[in-house]
């Protein structure tokens, strides 16, 4: 019989923990660079920014935040309440259909509505044909405005609020509502005095997610000509070539994001207090009839109609009937997008596996912090990450080029900043949280005693991994791959900044065509993105349906 010291397994644990710390440090680099500029910036740049554009940026960004808040709450909370508490025709379908707008990136819905509603679009043409009025003789809503951007963002971001508040409404114990009824509250009073306050932390958590996406949005506001932080960062960086000023704007934007993160964390803690651990009875649905049912149907239909069905239908129509379509070009774009997204997905899952296992083997404070840091990037707008990566990578490249030309007389080119390396790096910072979430949930479900059971039945640690973990983790890994893949496919601002010269993806091409006023030609690429984006939404709605059983 051989005996073995514990050293070899200790060594493995140290190797894992070390890797976790390394991954987290590298992923934290962009934010650290941005933060450094907050203090390193010169007074002139600040005062110049302050006296010229900063007021606009802050004003527009705040207005957008306020408007989108109102929009997503109005669309998300009533629909969540209706589908979780009331019974009316179509409720089951709406339960998942209300998630569909999540598949549409904001910039794509913006192009679609612009094509539909601008002066040359079918709606205004129809008005002119019917009324015989000409240009300027009638009032029509200007879609390319701050208000338009607010509506577009609200239409695709309300599902965050819907999802979280629905979960909260479902979790509320029926008995709490029943108690309030026995204490003399009507159903409506019970909603406002009890259900809504109980769901408030969840609603706020959903709201902060929607607002983070709003702050991160570049495609919509840029297209609509609304100057916000993200467009400002782009303009300063490309138009003025001033990376220091761009980084400082990014740092200010980061401030907003940090506030939102804190708010989100706070409301998550509240959710824990508010959710009850008691055995819950399945709440009995309130049956709506007549006008009430029709009203509920309409309230749930509108977001789905305007957030998904209408823009999706328009895109489909354009793509099939009108778009100028070059198959070879399109295949190249799709190939670029798919390989890039696949590479990012595989990498993100590998890193997430390392982090998650490091935490399982050694739940040291250092490792915990590393996992937390690695998971924070999801809140960061792509522009911030891109600038935070581009600055140090460009510096690194210049050092390398100098050294190499000096020693070997050879110019290696932009190895870091000019290749897909920088882009993959940015995707890791932004999307590692996504794969990490899925993989950690999967791993947490394998109780440590299951590992011990495997060992006591004669498995070595490697065999435990192969015979127990691999089959049990398969679905979590696939989910993580899929979600990162789709997120990367949809991502616009970081891809725009960091892509190698002449490297185009579906999202970038859709953006470029739309910017060139070739909205209809952008339809095939947009449609492809929406179609792929539907995959995780289907997954989500299926897991919701299963959770109900």
């Amino acid at each position, binding site marked *: *019989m*051989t*005996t*073995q*010291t*514990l050293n070899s397994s200790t060594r493995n644990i140290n190797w894992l923990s070390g890797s976790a710390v390394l991954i987290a440090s590298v992923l934290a680099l962009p934010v650290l660079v941005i933060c450094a500029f907050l203090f390193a910036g010169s007074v002139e740049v600040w005062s110049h920014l302050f006296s010229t554009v900063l007021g606009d940026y802050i004003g527009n960004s705040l207005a957008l935040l306020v408007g989108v808040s109102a929009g997503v709450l109005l669309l998300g909370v009533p629909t969540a309440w209706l589908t979780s508490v009331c019974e009316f025709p179509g409720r089951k379908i709406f339960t998942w259909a209300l998630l569909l707008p999540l598949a549409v990136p904001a910039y794509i819905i913006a192009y679609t509505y612009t094509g539909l509603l601008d002066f040359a679009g079918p709606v205004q043409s129809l008005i002119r044909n019917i009324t015989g009025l000409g240009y300027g003789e009638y009032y029509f809503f200007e879609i390319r405005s701050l208000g338009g951007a607010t509506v577009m963002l609200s239409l695709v971001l309300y599902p965050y609020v819907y999802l979280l508040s629905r979960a909260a409404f479902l979790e509320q114990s029926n008995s709490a509502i029943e108690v309030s009824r026995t204490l003399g509250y009507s159903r409506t009073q019970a909603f406002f005095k009890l259900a809504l306050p109980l769901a408030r932390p969840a609603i706020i958590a959903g709201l902060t997610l929607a607002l983070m996406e709003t702050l991160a949005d570049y495609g919509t506001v840029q297209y609509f000509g609304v100057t916000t932080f993200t467009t400002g960062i782009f303009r300063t960086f490309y138009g003025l070539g001033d990376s220091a000023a761009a980084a400082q704007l990014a740092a200010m934007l980061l401030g907003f994001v940090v506030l939102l993160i804190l708010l989100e964390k706070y409301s998550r803690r509240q959710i824990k207090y508010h959710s009850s651990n008691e055995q819950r009875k399945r709440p009995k649905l309130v049956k709506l009839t007549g006008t009430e049912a029709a009203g509920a149907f309409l309230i749930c239909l509108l977001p789905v109609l305007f957030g998904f069905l209408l823009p999706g239908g328009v895109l489909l129509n354009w793509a099939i009937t009108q778009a100028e379509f070059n198959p070879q070009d399109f295949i190249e774009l799709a190939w670029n997008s798919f390989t890039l997204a696949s590479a990012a997905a595989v990498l993100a899952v590998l890193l997430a596996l390392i982090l998650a296992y490091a935490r399982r083997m050694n739940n040291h404070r250092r490792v915990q912090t590393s996992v937390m840091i690695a998971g924070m990037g999801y809140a960061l707008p792509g522009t911030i990450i891109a600038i935070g990566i581009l600055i140090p990578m460009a510096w690194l490249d210049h050092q390398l080029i100098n050294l190499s030309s000096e020693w070997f007389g050879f110019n290696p080119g932009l190895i870091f900043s000019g290749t897909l390396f920088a882009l993959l790096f940015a995707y890791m910072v932004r999307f590692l949280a996504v794969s990490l979430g899925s993989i950690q949930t999967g791993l947490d*479900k394998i*109780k440590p*005693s*299951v590992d*011990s*059971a*495997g*060992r*006591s*039945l*004669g*498995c*070595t640690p490697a*065999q435990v991994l192969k*015979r*127990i973990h691999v*089959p*049990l983790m398969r679905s979590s890994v696939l989910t993580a791959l899929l979600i990162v893949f789709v997120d990367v496919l949809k991502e616009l601002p970081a891809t725009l900044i960091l892509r190698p010269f002449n490297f185009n993806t579906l999202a970038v091409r859709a953006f470029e065509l739309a910017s060139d006023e070739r909205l209809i030609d952008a339809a095939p690429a947009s449609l492809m993105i929406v179609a792929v984006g539907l995959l995780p939404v289907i997954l989500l709605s299926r897991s919701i349906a299963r959770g109900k059983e």
Partner: protein
Amino acid sequence: MNAQGTSLIYQLELKSLDLAYGCKTVVHHASLQLPAGQIGCLLGPSGCGKSTLLHAIAGFEKPTQGSISTVNNVISDENSVLPPEQRNIGMVFQDVALFPHLTVADNIRFGIRQLESTQQQQRISELLSLIGLPEYANRYPHELSGGQQQRVALARALAPKPDLLLMDEPFSGLDAKLRETLVPEVRRILKQEGISALVVSHDQSEAFSIADLIGVMNEGEIHQWDLAKRVYQQPATPFVAQFVGQGNLIDATVSCEHCVDTVLGKIRSTKPHQLVPGEQVKLLIRQYNVSQSSESPFTAQLLKKTFRGAYHQYQLQLESGEMLTCAVPANVEHQPGERVHIQLNINNPVLFSADPPQ
């Protein structure tokens, strides 16, 4: 304290084992011997280190001192630890830990895949009928009830015919009624398989109904490792006396080599004790040692009474301030605050020196 087992082959032997988490010692000088074919139980309050001890025997913890050995091999000491998979020690876990992706049959097959498939099949059906679930081979763990899951976990651990089976609070997740039927059932299965087992429990009735030998643990120490009967009748320390069977200790003075004096009169024992007359000692009194008797000259004040159906349980306070409990037939009525006449009926008094070695 050695077991009173007659067999000289020990299936498991711990020699003054120390276990620690970081620099905190959680088990101190633990020694025990488990003869082949016997079922032992480590009994103690939660946090006493019994689960840690069990995990060390399985090979998941490394001792800081002492050794663990099976029939002729040292499997753990402060220098080396044989990995769990090489020990041939089975384990049943508190949270069952069935593999959720495998059927009942495949869970049982997990540890015996080196056998030929016909042998595997034979062992699986043998075990399924042993645990009384022959029709459940193709079910998944989540389709089973708690008690069924626990029996499958037992079968899975038994499949490779381990030298020793460890069970960590195997019944604590089950409701009381199920436990009552499952515990003797598990004992039957273990005895039928002729396997040595060590069970960890915090519940003494569970310990008595499953084990041949019981080790009472508190704060990382094994106070007594002995036959189940003796743990109850001859507790080695005041802790064992009070934890097992909920006894009370009252002051007594040694008056002769057969007797002690208490506030409730003189207690005589049939055998002489080894105590010096005049010494202050503690006398163990269990509920059944006290009876209510109107002829008795001794009284105690009734503090609280609890109706238990067939009898009232009385909480009594002696004049010295010491507490006793006593069962009184339900047809006798006393009110709290009243003085109740009681007498002691003790044949083999359990005595501890007033300042006992721990």
